């Protein structure tokens, strides 16, 4: 049983499928004019954001509120790296407020592990992105979106061919996706210039390639990662134009992908950089669906961690128990 969601490595295939199935059920409950589900009434969820991420925070906030949890948004101005209040003192403040779950976004890799394991707090910890380490709910919503389009919305992702393109070195989205997608049986290929692949990547359960063009015809789902502005200034590649020419997804590149294939992007997108406008606006791009799926996936995680007397990940009761 896992009380926290810190990394996709913590999830078995059964856990992951349970989360995706739960998200699907929650989607069925929210087809119409969605009102609040009373499930987490009286529970307090704290969004502890040490990094600006309006998108992720809003998604978690919507998820928690739809489950009727009380939501406290705690935007910490600076982490202890910048000599603000220490993570420990912040955590203990939240504990005193009675947080049942802390959703944490932090620029330092591993900060959610410290929150969960240092003995500062008692509630569940959900990693909403830590440094360049992990972003498990993003991977879950990506897997949900792929399963929905390419596997009829059920089961695992056995044999699905997924390409993740861009700054793998600094991407928590890539790390979490490699872990989750391979747990679910997908075949993952990472495409990037060699400077944006970490030393040690050869040990990951993924194929490595330096050429996007080689893989387009054999890709079911293509995930384009955002290229951060600061990378362009640190000699990871010669120029934005050169990157875009070699690794950007243009309409002509997309035309070489199979008919059924989809294009994902964790957002926010850099139009004209890693993805051309006409691609982003094409029906194959499921970027807006990813946003919608983000809310139900996060609802599923919150429900599974907080809904019962104990966490439901890793151990689930038979629904026959009470009639």
């Amino acid at each position, binding site marked *: 049983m896992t009380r926290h969601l810190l990394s996709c490595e913590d999830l078995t295939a059964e856990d992951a499928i349970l989360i995706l199935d739960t998200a699907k059920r929650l989607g069925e409950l929210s087809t119409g004019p969605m009102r609040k589900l009373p499930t987490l009434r009286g529970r307090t969820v704290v969004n502890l954001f040490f990094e600006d991420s309006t998108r992720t925070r809003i998604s978690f906030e919507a998820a928690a509120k739809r489950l009727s949890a009380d939501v406290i948004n705690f935007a910490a101005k600076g982490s*202890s790296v910048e000599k603000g209040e220490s*993570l420990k003192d912040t955590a203990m403040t939240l504990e005193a407020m009675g947080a049942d779950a802390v959703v944490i976004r932090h620029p*330092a*890799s*591993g900060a959610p592990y*410290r929150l969960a394991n240092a003995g500062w707090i008692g509630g569940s910890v959900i990693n909403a992105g830590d440094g360049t380490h992990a972003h498990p709910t993003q991977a879950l919503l990506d897997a949900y979106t792929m399963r929905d389009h390419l596997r009829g919305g059920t089961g695992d992702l056995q044999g699905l061919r997924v390409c993740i393109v861009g700054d793998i070195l600094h991407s928590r989205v890539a790390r979490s996706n490699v872990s989750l997608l391979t747990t679910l049986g997908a075949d993952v290929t990472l495409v990037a210039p060699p400077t944006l692949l970490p*030393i040690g990547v050869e040990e*990951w359960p993924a194929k490595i390639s330096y050429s996007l063009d080689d893989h387009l015809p054999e890709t079911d789902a293509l995930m384009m990662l955002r290229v951060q502005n600061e990378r362009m200034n640190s000699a990871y590649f010669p120029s934005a134009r050169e990157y875009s020419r070699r690794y950007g997804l243009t309409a002509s590149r997309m035309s070489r992908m199979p008919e059924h294939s989809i294009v994902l992007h964790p957002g926010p997108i850099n139009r004209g950089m890693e993805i051309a406008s006409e691609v982003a606006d094409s029906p194959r791009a499921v970027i807006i669906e990813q946003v919608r799926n983000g809310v139900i996936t996060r609802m599923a995680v919150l429900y599974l961690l907080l809904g019962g007397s104990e966490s439901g990940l890793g151990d689930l009761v038979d629904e026959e128990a009470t009639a």
Partner: protein
Amino acid sequence: MTTWHIAGAQPLGGEPVDIVISDGIISAILPTGSTPATNSTLIEARGLIALPGLVDLHTHLREPGREDAETVESGCRAAALGGFTAVHAMANTDPVADSAGVVEQVWRLGQTAGLCDVHPVGAVTVGLQGERLAEIGAMADSAARVRIFSDDGHCVNDALLMRRALEYTKAFDGVVAQHAQEKRLTEGAQMHEGVVSSRLGLTGWPAVAEEAIIARDVLLAEHVDGRLHVCHVSTAGSVEIIRHAKARGVKVTAEVTPHHLMLTDDLVETYDPVYKVNPPLRTARDVVALRAALADGTIDAVATDHAPHPSESKDCEWAAASMGMLGLETALSVVIETMVNTGLMGWADVADRMSIRPARIGGLQGQGRPLAVGEPANLVLVDAGATWVVDPAAMASRSRNTPYRALTLPGRVVATIFRGRPTVLEGRLA
């Protein structure tokens, strides 16, 4: 002065003898079972190994400036409990030990504590800034008689400055102890760069950043015929470079820390900053190479890099945490675990790597001497068969950042004798 009669100790693990100490020197070595003189105090040492007092080339005592983490006095207590009779206090204090005034202050604090010899290390460059040489000669001529110079914590990156330091220290047989870390390759580095860092998303500290500097420095040392000492060697590649340089006759010596002999980078998976250290924990392959190099003498010495930090510097997220681990009170046990119990080294080798050679590198008089009549009475008695569980709260250091917390380690220091006087008896400060 009191006379001590140590009964039944085994020098370097050899046959048991009685060692008599008076007036600060070993006055007699007698067959075991000899009757103690009436005015002497008996120290029962049957089954204990006797080694020359340990000498640490690399200790951070934090005073002046960070007395909340450690003081010269508390660090010396930790040293004595660890079996040390001499330590070298690193220069990265506040103010930096880059002048005769500061090194003399540290030296006097050590004299006052009286638990072991404290030899200040002088900074190579003013304020450890790597810009211009500190007054190395003044520190050498001061009461502290500094012989080791190091910007430890920082690398002397400027090749010309490093060359000058290696040249200048020749005037008084000094040595430059380099913290080998190429600056640009380690910007923001958090842990060893490899498979584990790739998974954990922590910025990598590549082995090549250490090896490139060592390679440059041995060439510089060869060119100017200066003495280079390489601090905390941590990679298999560094070992190869040093081995090669020694074969060419370069005046290079090297040290390895106990933690690099035992711990590996996969411990970082907990994100517990108690494992954050510089240079970082490396891979199992590096550990094997370091052990082999220490055993064959390519690496000359074990040095603790004892680096105390207050709890708030470790009770935080990884990136915000300070680098460093305690080492003085666990060093000998870790060496027994990794080198003796594995059969890689005998007790004479332990004495050589933890006392004799470090004393020679530091140019120390009266330390690292044989256990023989007429020699200064600096020695340690070790119960090699005992085991103990590391309890951070029980440590003499002011800080608690030991990576061995709750581990069971072999070997207990029963007694430490410093200049003829026990500083530790029955495992406790005397």
